[in-house]
């Protein structure tokens, strides 16, 4: 994995709201086809980091590179980079005034010149990938939380992105749905060749799918370590806080 060129590089990134610093001096890179998990306790800035990575927040200090291009929200270059993103939000964040079908179809209508019939076929296929075939005519409010989340994923992969971001994909899902989602993420990586960044603190998911995991520590306000979660857990030389997190504090 690591011999692949880095797709995403983060250099000295500081996350802040106003004067309040959430995380400082973050340095990491994500390789092509890698599944990177960002983990850490509640309130450590995981979701904030994700917002910076997708350009919803502007970095005060530090740089983010996609390939060789620097990513700065607001520039036309950033819009080009963004076209390769698929983002799945914590709550699904489906557009509530549109049906499921229209939700998935909108990015396709917006960015491609495909005829309506082809868009219909594509949308139906994406919905069937997340197990929602036949639900296209439903409004988001008529679906359960887990279904909304999966529909959000179908929308995120509508444009066949090569970088996928997930914010807490399995939070609030039952263990089986969560497992299916993990499998789907692995499949997407293999089939689309996508690079995947996941914010989560579900240990089962972390061990099942992560190639590497970045631990954000709320006390020291920085990333403590970056590596394969199994190795981090087994290696006695890795940070005690991280091993405690990965073992649910069982070694206390």
């Amino acid at each position, binding site marked *: 994995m690591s011999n692949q060129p880095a797709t995403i590089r983060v250099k000295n990134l500081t996350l802040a709201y106003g004067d309040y610093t959430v995380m400082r001096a973050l340095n990491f890179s994500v390789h092509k086809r890698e599944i990177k998990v960002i983990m850490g306790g509640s309130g450590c800035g995981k979701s904030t980091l994700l917002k910076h990575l*997708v350009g919803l927040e502007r970095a005060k200090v530090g740089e983010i590179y996609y390939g060789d291009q620097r990513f700065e929200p607001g520039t036309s270059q950033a*819009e080009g980079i*963004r076209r390769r993103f698929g983002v799945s*939000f914590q709550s699904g*964040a*489906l557009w509530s005034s549109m049906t499921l079908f229209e939700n998935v179809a*909108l990015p396709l209508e*917006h960015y491609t010149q495909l005829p309506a019939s082809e868009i219909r076929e594509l949308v139906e296929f994406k919905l069937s990938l997340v197990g929602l075939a036949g639900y296209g005519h439903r409004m988001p409010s008529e679906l359960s939380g887990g279904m909304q989340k999966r529909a*959000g994923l179908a929308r995120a992969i509508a444009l066949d992105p090569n970088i996928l971001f997930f914010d807490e994909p399995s939070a609030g899902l039952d263990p089986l749905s969560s497992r299916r989602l993990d499998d789907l993420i692995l499949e997407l990586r293999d089939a689309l060749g996508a690079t995947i960044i996941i914010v989560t603190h579900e240990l089962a998911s972390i061990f099942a799918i992560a190639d590497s995991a970045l631990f954000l520590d709320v006390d020291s306000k920085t990333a403590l370590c970056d590596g394969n979660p199994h190795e981090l857990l087994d290696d006695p030389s890795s940070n005690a806080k991280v091993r405690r997190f990965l073992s649910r504090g069982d070694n206390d």
Partner: protein
Amino acid sequence: MHGSFARYGKRRCEGLFSNMSDTQQKAKKADWGTRRKGGNFVVHFSGVWINGEPKPSADTLRRDIESEPELETLHLEADHLTSWDSSLLVAVRQLCDWADTQGLRTRLDGLPNGVQNLVALSRAVPENKQTGEDTPDDFLSNMGERALSGYRGLNGYFEFLGQLCIDLFAFLRGRGRLRGKDLLTLLQSTGAQAMPIVALLSFLTGLIIAFIGVIQLQKFAADIYVADLVGLAVTRELGALMAGIIMAGRTGAAFAAQIGSMQVNEEIDSLATFGISPMQFLVVPRVVALVLMMPLLCGCANFLGIVGGMVVAVAISDVTVLQYCNQIQVAVGLNDLAVGFFKSGIFGLIIALAGCYRGLNCGRDASSVGLAATSAVVTSITWIVIADAIFAVMFQILGI
């Protein structure tokens, strides 16, 4: 201390000796006895420590402990505790915290195991002293903060207006990226669906104006001029104003709430991650729909206001329908109608701007959606009235 020990002792003695059949009754009361043992100060809990039952005063106990010289340890124990709940836990916890500030060690081993464990658990994670704000809280810095946030708000508003102008031009040049279906739905909801309420209220307004007018004008036998009164008042002012105020309450609030709840659900964020500008996708169609529909609603309000006036004029004075219509035709010129239509278009713009701006700047929780809707209505009605006043002066000077 001896005095207070005697006091506690006395109370317990009363409990024991005054009335033996009352023992059960007295045992129910939460109480603590105290005694000194070397460097130890022992507090002995007894009775029923249940929420809602009377409790002894902690201040008295603290004063007693403070008055003791050279104490090292505060020892809490309880052998004759009848029953307890959180009430005892709170008392123990507060006593422990207070002892910490006094530099006393605390020993809880005389208390029931459950109490020891829960109190230890509640003290395990230290209290968060960080409030998140480290700005000083005095008059000058508050004023400075407010001025800065006002300045930022103003900047944000100009940014919003500028971006909207760019996107509106793009829309007019046919380069907009909005969905036709959305625009049609908005035209329906701001136009056809708003018509009944606008019609009803303007009919009644015309009626009211005519009532006042007819009664006054009859004194001078000038009943027919009620048509002038109603016609001019409705076409120049009231039609547009009524439509504006109704739409501010109905549609402006709806815009703010819709966009605000989209903000709460991260829907705006997800639009942005697809590179779809919320301005083009949400604000432009709303502004266009309302600016197009308001003059139509104003026309409807004008017509029904005049009809309302006619009903009263015909019913309570000698004016006939034909006379009334004739007089309206003489009194109301095309410029009066144009003034009303023009104003209603501007009011539509004000309402749509206020609603969308408040919605986009809504916070991330449910209560801020309510606030956004409220402030959208207040802002738009305020600006409608201000604009109307400016127009009144302007048209006077221009002689329209």
